[in-house]
């Protein structure tokens, strides 16, 4: 009898003593897809903008009022903390904000430069709802609000579109790095590396991009474009990596997926496009008394994607030549990134962490003054490049054209 009573009591307790749970109907939730942080009008204040999904405008096949509203809309509110703004926004919204599906956080460039980004991520770690896997971008040349205000073609919700663009370009062009909130937090916390965040800009008129008419012309008036990698020191934006520098950074970081390397071919400048298919880098540190040497070894493989000059790739010398110039080209871009970082005194590559891994004792002494030490460190870059496939043809037709003319 006693056992049975215990079982009953425990069963009841199982249901009563639950942790936090909350029943919310889907129709009471405003699904937030992205949010943007700008500077507020007053000192110390943020202007937080939320992009909220209009479900009925996004579903296919459901009988909806389709065509009247935009797929998403934004609401802005100010507050000294982000959470204050979240609660304040209830004055303007009929539904409760729901953050579990946030994919993007956009930060104003001015804000990042002047006040820094250190304070912005506490909420992400503290809240059970927000995800640490949300992506972070810096709005470049415009305020963050207008980035998520954009109406975009193809996929409709600009918050998600931007993330998709970032993922796509990281995969095939590798000039930008996909950074999630927890990466940023790790970068901020770590002394041996500094965070980087990719940028996003508006190509066109931001005002036009807000309207639905943005979708009604074939030459889209305003487009979102992923652009550059922002570097941070002490939580403040100190400079942008662009083009070759950004690629060089990706090489060292071992994040290079695939890109096109432009090389000269005989007399024609930029006549060869090599499609990189694989790249691996390893960093080793040598700590000496006076200076520190880093060895960056890069191994890469590529295909010939396009070659607008006569060169017979069936001969191995030609391939060797291409491999050599590919290695040189790579090294050039890597060095430009390293030089930039050393000049700005930001260890975006995580060299400090390499020392920490290889020689923790030395790191204990170095870590206080690391940014200065980093700028003086010597970096030796070694590139091994291989070209594996010349594509479907061995000899380009271009070679034969001059002969016919003779």
């Amino acid at each position: 009898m006693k056992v049975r009573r215990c079982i009953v009591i425990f069963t009841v307790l199982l249901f009563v003593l639950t942790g936090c749970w909350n029943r919310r109907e889907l129709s009471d939730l405003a699904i937030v897809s992205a949010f943007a942080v700008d500077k507020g009008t007053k000192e110390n204040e943020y202007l937080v903008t939320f992009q909220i999904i209009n479900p009925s405008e996004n579903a296919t096949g459901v009988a909806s009022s389709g065509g009247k509203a935009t797929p998403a809309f934004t609401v802005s509110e100010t507050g000294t903390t982000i959470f204050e703004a979240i609660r304040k926004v209830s004055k303007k919204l009929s539904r409760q904000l729901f953050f579990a599906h946030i994919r993007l956080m956009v930060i104003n460039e001015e804000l990042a430069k002047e006040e820094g980004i250190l304070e912005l991520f506490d909420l992400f770690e503290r809240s059970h709802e927000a995800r640490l896997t949300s992506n972070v971008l810096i709005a470049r040349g415009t305020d963050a609000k207008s980035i998520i205000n954009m109406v975009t073609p193809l996929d409709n919700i600009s918050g998600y579109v931007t993330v998709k663009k970032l993922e796509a370009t990281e995969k095939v062009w590798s000039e930008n790095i996909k950074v999630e909130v927890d990466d940023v937090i790790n970068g901020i916390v770590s002394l041996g590396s500094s965070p980087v965040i990719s940028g996003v800009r508006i190509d066109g008129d931001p005002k036009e991009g807000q309207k639905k008419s943005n979708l009604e012309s074939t030459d889209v008036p305003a487009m979102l474009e992923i652009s550059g990698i922002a570097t941070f020191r002490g939580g403040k934006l100190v400079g942008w990596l662009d083009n070759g520098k950004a690629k060089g950074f990706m090489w060292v970081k071992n994040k290079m997926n695939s890109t096109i390397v432009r090389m000269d071919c005989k007399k024609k400048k930029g006549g060869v496009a090599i499609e990189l298919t694989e790249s691996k880098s390893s960093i080793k540190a040598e700590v000496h008394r006076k200076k520190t040497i880093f060895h960056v070894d890069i191994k890469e493989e590529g295909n010939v994607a396009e070659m607008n000059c006569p060169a017979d790739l069936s001969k191995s010398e030609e391939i060797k030549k291409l491999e050599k110039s590919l290695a040189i080209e790579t090294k050039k871009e890597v060095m430009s990134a390293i030089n930039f970082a050393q000049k700005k005194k930001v260890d975006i590559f995580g060299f400090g962490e390499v020392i920490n891994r290889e020689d923790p004792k030395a790191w204990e002494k170095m870590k206080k003054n690391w940014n200065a030490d980093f700028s003086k460190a010597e970096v030796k870059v070694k590139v091994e490049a291989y070209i594996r496939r010349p594509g479907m043809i061995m000899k380009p037709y271009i070679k034969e054209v001059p002969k016919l003319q003779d």
Partner: protein
Amino acid sequence: MTRRWGRYSFEKDKKETEKELPFGDRPFVSADINKNLKRIKQDIGNSPDMTVREFQINELRVIAVYSDSLVDIDVVNNFIKQALTMEKGQSNDENNVFDIIKKNARASQEVKVIREWDEILLSILTGDTALLIDGFAHAITGSTKGGEQRSIAEPTTQTVVRGPKDCFTESIATNISLVRRRISSPNLWLETMRIGEETQTTVGIMYMKGIVTDGLIQEVKERLNRIKIDMILDSGQIEEFIEDQPSSPFPTVYNTERPDSVAANLMEGRIAILVNGSPFALVVPTLFVQFFQSPDDYYYRFHIAIFLRLLRYISFLISLVGPSVYIAAITFHQEMIPTTLLISIAASREGVPFPAFVEALIMEVAFELMREAGIRMPRAVGQAVSIVGALVLGQAAVQAGIVSSIMVIIVAITGIASFTTPAYNLAISARLLRFVLMILAATFGFYGITLGLIIIIAHLNSLRSFGIPYLAPLSPLIPSDQKDGMLRFPLWSMFKRPRLINQNNTIRENGNLQPSPKQNGGESKREE
């Protein structure tokens, strides 16, 4: 002896003697044929289907009593003719005439000599013909059973694509023959008993002597003997009296209308209970996995059988938790639904006036209504009703914005999934528990579903069927029985009978029967 409704004298007082009782209550046949005639009419109440025919052999009066509706009249006539035709010289011996009639009757039918009224009446009421001879206080009964009965048809509830297509009928004799024809072994034993004070229903227990454990036979008999009731019309009623855990939503007795299924179960050491008047045989002991096994699993090749069995488990799970998972996900755990899916669910729920739980309840109840109506409604109106049901539930409800289209999909999938369980009685338990889980999901989310499932599994673990753990061979885990548990290994790999059910005669296959190409012998023959 007359019986009164509602108060039975189950224990017949054997001490009462003939003399102390008034005539109508005397338990034995009288030697006076007139008294007997009166007694029959009095006991049966002059029912018009009772036929009493009188014959005169020399000076001897003989009456034959039988029920028109239960006998084959040709057999009866033959029986009477055989019994009462005297050969030369036979009739002279007056004292011997009873034995002579008995001897003659024996030539045509199986004959019993009875003197208790109760037994005579019972045998008449089960289709026998009774001969009463003047001057003898005994009756001769001959088996003359006949009458109309349903012929063997195809199974309606346990259909298979490949495999035998015969099915039990309402006649226990037919049913026994269907099993006997499959197992031509002297070890197939049958015992019968009568249950039901008024209906006197024949109940047969079939088992394979030497394979079945003796304790099990004893247990089944004890449980059947305990039943004291006025009527048994179907094996379902027997099931309710002999099951181990009557309060459980899960059935612990398996029923089948397929003779091949019964035969296979007998061979595994189970006991089959056949009930006259019911085309469903009971099979005990029963395991949980049995409800997911269809007879054609063994007739297909094993790859397909394994796939189909796993499919049934999955669909059982869907039919159990389908709507509750949906409710929990969209009211508690919106973060775990992929964003695009969440948006389209949100879009379809836009404007639905009810919370998800109420919405699900409406649809589930509507579906249950359709299902029940589908069984009960007259065949002629069936089509009309189902069209209206489908249109109203599927189309109109969504268009009117009462339920979301996603909910219709969920309910439809759940409904279809519940039909894939081969055993209807287990599908019904899932149907009931589904509502419980839906309530749990609506109040506690996945936490509630998890707790609910834990309770269900704990309960399943506590169940026994005739002493065998219900979840065997999964819990307790019996590795060798996994070959025919949730999976179905090739037949040539199943050497042994299920371990817990059968302990006497465990080996069922001889050595390695796996087919393989001949090693060498084949070639030499070809050369010749």
